[in-house]
């Protein structure tokens, strides 16, 4: 069935626009492209944990880049999700030091509990499982990253349950510093 209305073009929130303006002051005027990775992080936080082609086009437009300059970068770096994801993306470290402390078992347990295999989203849409390489927390292995938070020493069922329960009970993701600033401005 053909859609009768044009898809709504994504737009950055006012808080994100303010943050982008701040970030752009960090680089020379003729080097705006430097802000590409920071902007992709903002976009991924703003638009549901992934960057659709439309969102990437918005990033390109914001920085005055050709869309391909954004696509070739978003596909190079592992943090940017190019497909829709669940509410929480569990990024499980699978590298040597974590493996020595039980990341294989952790991954198997998370697959069993969530009902999603690595690379998939659980049927309830809550969790996407993603394996990643070394997160620089080998001393507290095994670990999982969810957005900006590290869950460390997940070597017991209790620790895994505590993480999953915290995420299940989370209504909205935690606000980022620039969103809080934005909120204060709105409230004033």
């Amino acid at each position: 069935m053909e859609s009768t209305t044009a898809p709504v073009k994504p737009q950055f929130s006012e808080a994100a626009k303010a943050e982008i303006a701040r970030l752009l002051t960090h680089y020379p005027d003729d080097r705006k492209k430097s802000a590409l990775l920071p902007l992709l992080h903002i976009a991924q936080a703003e638009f549901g944990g992934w960057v659709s082609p439309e969102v990437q086009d918005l990033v390109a437009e914001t920085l005055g880049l050709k869309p391909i300059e954004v696509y070739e970068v978003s596909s190079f770096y592992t943090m940017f999700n190019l497909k829709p994801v669940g509410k929480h993306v569990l990024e499980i470290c699978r590298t040597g030091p974590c493996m020595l402390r039980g990341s294989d078992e952790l991954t198997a347990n998370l697959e069993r509990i969530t009902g999603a295999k690595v690379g998939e989203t659980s049927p309830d849409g809550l969790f996407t499982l993603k394996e990643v390489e070394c997160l620089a927390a080998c001393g507290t292995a095994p670990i999982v990253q969810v957005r900006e938070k590290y869950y460390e020493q997940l070597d017991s069922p209790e620790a895994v349950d505590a993480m999953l329960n915290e995420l299940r009970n989370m209504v909205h993701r935690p606000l980022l510093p620039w969103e809080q600033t934005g909120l204060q401005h709105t409230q004033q």
Partner: protein
Amino acid sequence: MGRKLLTEHINVPGIDTFEVYRQHGGYRSVEKALKTMTPDEVVEEVKKSGLRGRGGAGFPTGMKWSFLAKPEGVPRHLVCNADESEPGTFKDRHLMSRLPHLLIEGMITSSYALGANTSYIYIRGELLYVLRILEKAIAEAYANGFLGKNILGSGYDLDLHVHPGGGAYICGEETALLESLEGKRGNPRNKPPFPAVQGLYARPTVVNNVESIAAVVPIINEGGDEYAKLGVGKSTGTKLISACGHLNKPGIYEIELGVPVEEFIYSDEYCGGIWKGRDLKAVVAGGSSVPILPKELILKTAAGESRLMTYESLSDGGFVTGTMLGSGGFIAMDETTCIVRNTWNFSRFYHHESCGQCSPCREGTGWLEKVLHRLEHGHGNMHDIDLIVSVAKQIEGNTICPLGEAAAWPVAAAVRHFRHEFEWHVTHREEAARPGAVYPGKAVLV
């Protein structure tokens, strides 16, 4: 107990705030440098200290600084490499999140020495939460007159920004990092030109590791000669060791270089021995890319001397019987560890992280992963063991950046010291393919 130059105050409540950091002697190096020293004098102190790059390569920091080109009218940059991604290494994350002002202080003093007026901290994207901590601390430094225009009335201006990566090990390579900071894919650049001549935005640039820049603070406070008194020979000062794997007390230890490896592993002051009362099988002493050594060779050199935590002692014996201090990512493996599985895991890492620019690395890392996978999963044959050594050899030295070597060395060393485990995986395929299976014999020293 050795001296702690970087982490002495790390457990002080509120040390991440400007006020408490300042109360504990923070920002003294900035005052000393900007008010009483010329930039060249700061460089001279760092040279005298003997400080060697703490990211892994161990190149003398002062010498790296002295290579910086200084053409008239062209801005120069200092970029801090906070892209800590080498498996087994987690010291910079710890330092930045707990002592953000130490890195900022080091950045100001170092930027002054190099004549940089805009500096960047490139932090790996996964550490966005640490970026928030650093940004808060930077705002405090601006508010207190340690960043911005005319710092402490010296006439020196500095802006400092934190920049996140996007998830790519290769961006720890300094030219890939600069590409990434320019908003591009992290493909390492051909050298020359070196960053000291054409770095960020084609301007002269120095790239230093977090710990190296932090070490500039005690070097300026106490003097390069004083710093050089710590340590052994050309391994001066202190080093942060990230201890992980099968240890009773994994964590970050600031050691005076020269501590015996045996003491580091077994004494209660440091790692407290191997967990679960087990025996040690092997150690990867400097991050995943350095050669693995069996217990006998990590504790003592081939000549039977006690192995020390120094650049020289760890590399004693070259790659035949030695290894490297590298980043200080110290991974201990107990007797139940399967060396083949571990080697496959590391090869998968390097294959995943190869940027794909150079064929020997792009294709070679893929073959290493594939052949090691079949050895580990009971489908290998004896020829495969020589095959991975051959592939590793063909990658080494044939790529733009050292990721090729980083991928090749662990494989070559694992086969060199643990060939019997690889052979067992071929002679006992079914047994070896079972989850958790480990070569049952003792190590055979070649």
